[in-house]
């Protein structure tokens, strides 16, 4: 706490030393207490989700409260899968998400490379305009785009959800640009001297060096597309084409007291990504901290 003590620390009596150690232990204990409490706040809901998903309706509404189900009521899961075309919705969601990842990973790194490493005239203006579009609420372009897709007969298809990804989104381009800027110029200089084209430098040098960043962006795109509710809600009218978000939301109104089944459906919706996250956590966090720290 107090600075000068470091200079005179060696002169202190053992008693004071001990009290200092005690203080440190107390402080670390306090810190862990707060961190653990926060951990309970973050994890508790998951536990409650899982516990509810394996309780029968009698146990869910039992008074007094039943913490641990006597017998795991797995039927909630099979009922949830039967009540909505769960597999179909999962495949729909997966299709849309993967197509968005594909599109974004074609368009975003290319644009980011142009903005980060080709010193062309007007580049800064372009970058400023791009950052400005991040502030544009999706709602302000929603109606004309819907009208346009409607005229092209693309409402109730997946095109409106996928197509924009193939042109790159400002936020992902920004993250990749920050990363590309951080790669030293010297690395590509000799290749340039040898007359390698910008595309070759991009494809054979910069991209391979940026795998963690590209991977992170791909994962963020996948996540955001997997979770999205508003776009599929607007564009997909046919229930068979729905994604999991829209399907689950429609399900809530219909089964609003069957919490066991609803929680089972939520678990089936949320846990694939959580499991995916555990596999890629290291690269992902690394990517976020690298791209986000600038």
């Amino acid at each position, binding site marked *: 706490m107090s600075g000068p003590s470091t200079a005179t620390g060696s002169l202190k009596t053992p008693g004071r030393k001990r009290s200092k150690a005690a203080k440190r232990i107390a402080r670390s204990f306090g810190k862990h207490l707060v961190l653990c409490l926060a951990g309970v706040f973050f994890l508790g809901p998951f536990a409650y989700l899982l516990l509810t998903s394996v309780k029968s309706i009698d146990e869910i509404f039992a008074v007094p409260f039943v913490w641990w189900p006597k017998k795991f009521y797995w039927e909630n899961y099979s009922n949830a899968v039967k009540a909505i075309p769960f597999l179909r919705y999962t495949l729909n969601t997966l299709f849309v998400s993967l197509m968005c990842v594909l599109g974004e990973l074609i368009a975003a790194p290319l644009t980011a490379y142009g903005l980060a490493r080709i010193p062309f005239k007007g580049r800064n203006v372009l970058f400023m305009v791009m950052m400005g579009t991040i502030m544009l609420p999706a709602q302000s372009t929603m109606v004309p785009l819907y009208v346009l897709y409607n005229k092209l007969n693309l409402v109730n298809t997946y095109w409106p959800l996928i197509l924009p990804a193939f042109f790159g989104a400002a936020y992902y381009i920004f993250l990749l640009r920050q990363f590309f800027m951080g790669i030293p110029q010297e690395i590509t200089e000799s290749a340039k001297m040898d007359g390698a084209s910008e595309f070759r430098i991009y494809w054979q040098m910069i991209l391979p060096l940026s795998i963690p960043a590209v991977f992170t962006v791909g994962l963020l795109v996948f*996540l955001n597309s997997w979770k999205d509710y508003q776009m599929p809600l607007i564009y997909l009218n046919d229930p068979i084409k729905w994604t999991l978000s829209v399907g689950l939301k429609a399900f809530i109104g219909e089964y609003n007291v069957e919490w066991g089944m609803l929680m089972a459906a939520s678990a089936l919706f*949320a846990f694939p990504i959580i499991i995916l996250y555990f596999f890629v956590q290291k690269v992902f966090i690394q990517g976020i901290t690298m791209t986000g720290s600038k």
Partner: protein
Amino acid sequence: MAKAVRNENAIGIRRRSRKTLMTGLLFTSPWIIGFFLFQLYPILASFYYSMTDYNLFTAPEWVGFGNYKKLFQDDKFYLSMYNTLYITVVGVVPHMAYALVMALLLNAKVKGQSLYRTIYFLPTLVPAVAGSLLWMWLLNSQYGLINMGLSAIGITGPNWLVDPDWTKPSLVLMGFWGTGTITVMYLAALQDVPKMFYEAAEIDGASKWRQFWTITFPSISPMTLFQLIMMLISSFQYFTEGLVFAEATQSTGGPENSLLFYSIYLYQQAFSFLNMGYASAMAWMLFLVVMFFTLLIFRTSARWVYYGGEK
């Protein structure tokens, strides 16, 4: 002779810079085309539509500023704007402060740092529909975990999702659960603060509290600015969570329309009532409000954001 060489050089440089321009534009062309197609055209078209009566089926009918006039007499417009401002003002700053505190605690070399970080990050992976559904259950007034916990310490919990005074605080409470991304980003920013600053402050005898305000906070202020603006923008588009919570009362706007957020009302006008013109006017108002607040933050940021850690 020398002049000719210089001329040739100048032409060479110009030619090269033109080639660079072409290459640059080629690389950035995906976004440029996308910008015209998905942003510039729609925002301009939206301004045109906002001046019309349009229901998708018949041709747009010019009404001038009629939609805007109607907007200013629409109680639901004010109510939805109020609800949105509420969730923004009451939500954004506490969520950021909480995330920062968690990041500070994690940054102080605690054991199990990465485990805690994972735990805090997990909820952000949960889709909004699933997360909101889970919180609806947690906040259930009779059987929910939260009110049961409160009654265990002798407090009768409110009727979170049904009492119009408590619906928005419920959403703010749920929002704390999803602060993991900000925590992770703050943690990264904290780890970038040069250690020697603290060593110097330690020698000067500055207290931890003082160190936070003179070193830590200024050093991470660019991150704070970035997060503040991103959260503000997404808060003004608050949609999914409000719509799911409104299911508790089987309505679109929740109890007494306390969950009728601006984006929900806009969605309703556009896609339930097919008032495309009116919805476009709403979209423009939203655009202006978001611009106003963003610029306001940028203008004040000169006073509290420090770049490069030099200051």
